[in-house]
Structures are given as structure tokens and as C-alpha cells.
């Protein structure tokens, strides 16, 4: 949707205008919220990398592997999809030290979010790999292409084009989920705005800015995802 990118630009302009108009008021809480935004972006990017890696590995294993590797993938997917993200974060941060593995808040947040979303992404990856026509696999066997090349050169490039919309949705969910990292003592946008709200009691302004920031992040991801989908599916024949 093109108008939405216009809305985002409008919101940014509105924010800029707001900061000029009532600068003295905003100066109290905007810097803290923007510092939180930097943390949110950092956590989002790092956990996105873990999420993508895990979903591709577990997705391929779930679709193609057999025996112990398959059961490992199934176990990972079911456990991390079945538990709540907040519980996973708590478990990583407060219980893992009992097992002799103390994590920094950033590491716990990134691992928790990445592993949790990787389990959801693995199901999307599995579906996309399954959606690549069987003829492609048969053709590679007929051409005597090795299993590794079959996966990396033939199946995955086509599967990636299919999985992009689902992955874009999950990426937006992931950015939203970073709001939970305040549970492991990180000061992201959400926690910063709660703190600032308790200091200044400007609920509407502070939370309007926070919600807008998240909305803008989500719209940029959606916009980028549409462009990426266009780029990746250009060379594929139009089949529905």
C-alpha cells in the first residue's frame, strides 16, 4: 500500500513539527525515548539474524532430514512455539545461570527472541520448501546434481521467493516482540517510555510517540519486504 508510506512520512513530519513547537516539553522525554529506539533497533537486527539462521536451518531439517536430525528440529520447533516468549526470556536470564551459563541482557534478549521466532520461521521455510514443485527435485536427480547443490542452487532460491511474505510478517512480529526485552533489564523504547511516563506524567504524548515509532518501523519493513519480494520473484514464472 503506497499511501501508508505517505502516512509514515507524514508522521515523521508531524514529530519534527511537534519537536519545534513544544521543544521545551519534548526535550524532557524525547532523548530518552530515542535512546531506547536505538536499543530496540540493535536488538531487532541481532535477533533477526538469529531468527533467519534458525528458521532456515530448522526449516530445511524439518523438510528434508530424517532420523535424529529431524527429531531435533521437531523438538526445537514444538518447544519454542509452545512456550511463551516472556517465559523463555526469563528462563534464559534467570535460570540459565543456575546451569552455569550467565548471559548478558543483550545476549539473553537476542537469543530468546531469535530462537522463539526461528521456530515459527522454520514452519514457514518448511512450507515454502514443500511448495517448490516436485519436478524441480526430480530434474536435479535426473541431472545428477549433488544433494547439497540441489538444496542451495535449485530448491532454496525458489523457496525463498515463496517464503518472503511470511518472513516479512514475522519480522514485524519480531520488532514488536522486542518490547519484551525490558524483562531482562534492557531499556528499549517501551521501557524508556514507561520510565519517562512515571517521571513526567505525559501519558498521551509519550505513548503516542512510542506507538508511532513502532508503526513506522513496521511500515518500513513492509515496504522493504514488498520490494524484496518483487526482486526475488521477478525471474520466476508466474504461477499461482
Amino acid at each position, binding site marked *: 500500500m503506497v499511501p501508508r508510506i505517505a502516512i509514515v512520512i507524514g508522521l515523521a513530519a508531524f514529530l519534527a513539527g511537534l519537536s519545534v513547537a513544544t521543544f521545551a516539553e519534548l526535550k524532557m522525554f524525547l532523548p530518552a525515548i530515542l535512546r531506547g529506539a536505538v536499543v530496540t533497533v540493535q536488538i531487532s537486527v541481532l535477533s533477526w539474524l538469529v531468527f533467519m539462521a534458525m528458521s532456515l536451518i530448522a526449516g530445511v531439517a524439518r523438510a528434508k532430514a530424517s532420523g535424529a536430525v529431524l527429531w531435533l528440529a521437531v523438538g526445537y520447533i514444538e518447544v519454542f512455539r509452545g512456550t511463551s516468549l516472556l517465559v523463555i526470556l526469563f528462563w534464559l536470564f534467570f535460570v540459565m545461570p543456575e546451569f552455569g551459563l550467565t548471559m548478558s541482557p543483550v545476549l539473553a534478549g537476542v537469543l530468546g527472541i531469535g530462537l522463539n521466532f526461528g521456530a515459527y520461521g522454520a514452519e514457514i521455510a518448511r512450507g515454502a520448501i514443500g511448495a517448490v514443485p516436485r519436478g524441480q527435485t526430480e530434474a536435479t536427480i535426473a541431472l545428477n546434481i549433488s544433494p547439497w547443490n540441489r538444496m542451495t542452487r535449485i530448491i532454496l532460491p525458489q523457496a525463498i521467493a515463496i517464503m518472503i511474505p511470511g518472513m516479512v510478517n514475522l519480522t514485524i512480529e519480531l520488532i514488536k516482540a522486542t518490547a519484551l526485552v525490558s524483562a531482562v533489564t534492557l531499556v528499549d523504547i517501551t521501557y524508556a517510555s514507561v520510565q519517562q511516563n512515571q517521571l513526567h506524567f505525559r501519558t498521551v504524548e509519550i505513548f503516542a510517540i512510542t506507538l508511532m515509532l513502532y508503526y513506522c518501523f*513496521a511500515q518500513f519493513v513492509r515496504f522493504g519486504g514488498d520490494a524484496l519480494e518483487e526482486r526475488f520473484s521477478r525471474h520466476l514464472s508466474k504461477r499461482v
Partner: protein
Amino acid sequence: MDWRWDFTFDVVLPKMWEAAGVTVWATVASFVLALIGGLILMLLKTHRSPWISRPATEFIEFIRATPLLVQIFFLFFLLPDFGITLPPLTTGILAIGIYNSALCAEVYRAGFQAVPKGQWEACIALNLSTYRTFRDVIIPQSLPPIVPALGNYLVAIFKETPLLSFVAVAEIMQISKLIGAEYYRFTEAVTIAGIFFLVMSLIAAFLIRLVENYVKRSILH
């Protein structure tokens, strides 16, 4: 690592049992709210007038693009400003309900759009009343895709309820945090909370599959 069974059975489990009730109540209440709210939002979104459908569409998009936790905090801090003081649990149920009604609206819409246009036209051609059109033709055909999706949202809501611990609702996560703070032992409480969610989700997923099969069999012969 030391896991203490006596601590688990004497302290953790009794408290968790009470908290499980709060979690289940929050889940059910939010789900009912989401079902009704989703229907209303869907009707607004598919309204003829763009003056109604456009704001509804943007509202749904906005709700879906912002984190539930921020929405919970917003409602939690905002409502008292308007002189509405609700208990945290009610505020939380309201927030989760609104958030998921935006998601359910999309599910309903997809379900109704999955019914081929020819079905509507056939109903008009056969001069069926609006009531009969919906009861006998449209709803039975749109249910099979809707039911499993709604079931998934029920599980999703269940897994969102730990967010209520941020506004001090005494549900499972909050209780395990409190136990951890009181005895300085997080291991048992947080692990049991995790197992509780895992087991309940797996059971729910199994039940959803049963219901899904039942709907498929009984409606689409």
C-alpha cells in the same frame, strides 16, 4: 544446578495453581472480546462507505503494527487520566481483546472472501432471504477456514497473557517472578511456568486439530 522438589511441591505448585486460574480466565475473556470485536471491525472494514471502511482499515493496521505490551501500558496509564479506574486484570483483558480483535477481523474477512462470488449470486437468483443466505450458504462455507485460524489465536492469546505481569496482574508469570523475588529461587518457578505453557499449548493444538476435522467433516460432507 540444584532443583529442590520439596520447594517445588510446598511453595511453587500451590501458588501456581491459583495463578493458573487467572491466566485461563484472562485468556477466555480476551478471546470472547476478540471474537465480538473482530466481527464488528470486519463489518466496519467491509462497509460500503469509504468514510467508515478506510478508518477501520487503518485502525486495524495500526493495532497490528504496534506491540501489545505498549498498548497494555498505554491503556493502563491512559484510562485513569479519563477518570476510569479499572483493576489491572480488566485493563489487560481489554488490551489483549482489542489487539486480537484486529487480528480476528482479518480472519473473518478472509473466510467470507473465500466463498466464491457465484454463491452470493446464486442466492440472489434463488431469491433467498438475507438470513437464509448467511445461515445456510455463506456461514457454513466460510467456517472451515475460520475455525482453525481462530483456534490458533486462542493459543496465541494464551501465550500473550504473561504480558499482564508487566502491570502486576497475579497470573502465572507474575507469581513465578514474585516467588523468585521472595525466596531468591527462580529455577523451579520459571521452569514450571514454561512447562505449564508448553503442555497447555500442545493440548490446545491437539484439540484445535480435532475441532478442525469435526468442522470439515460435519459441514463439508
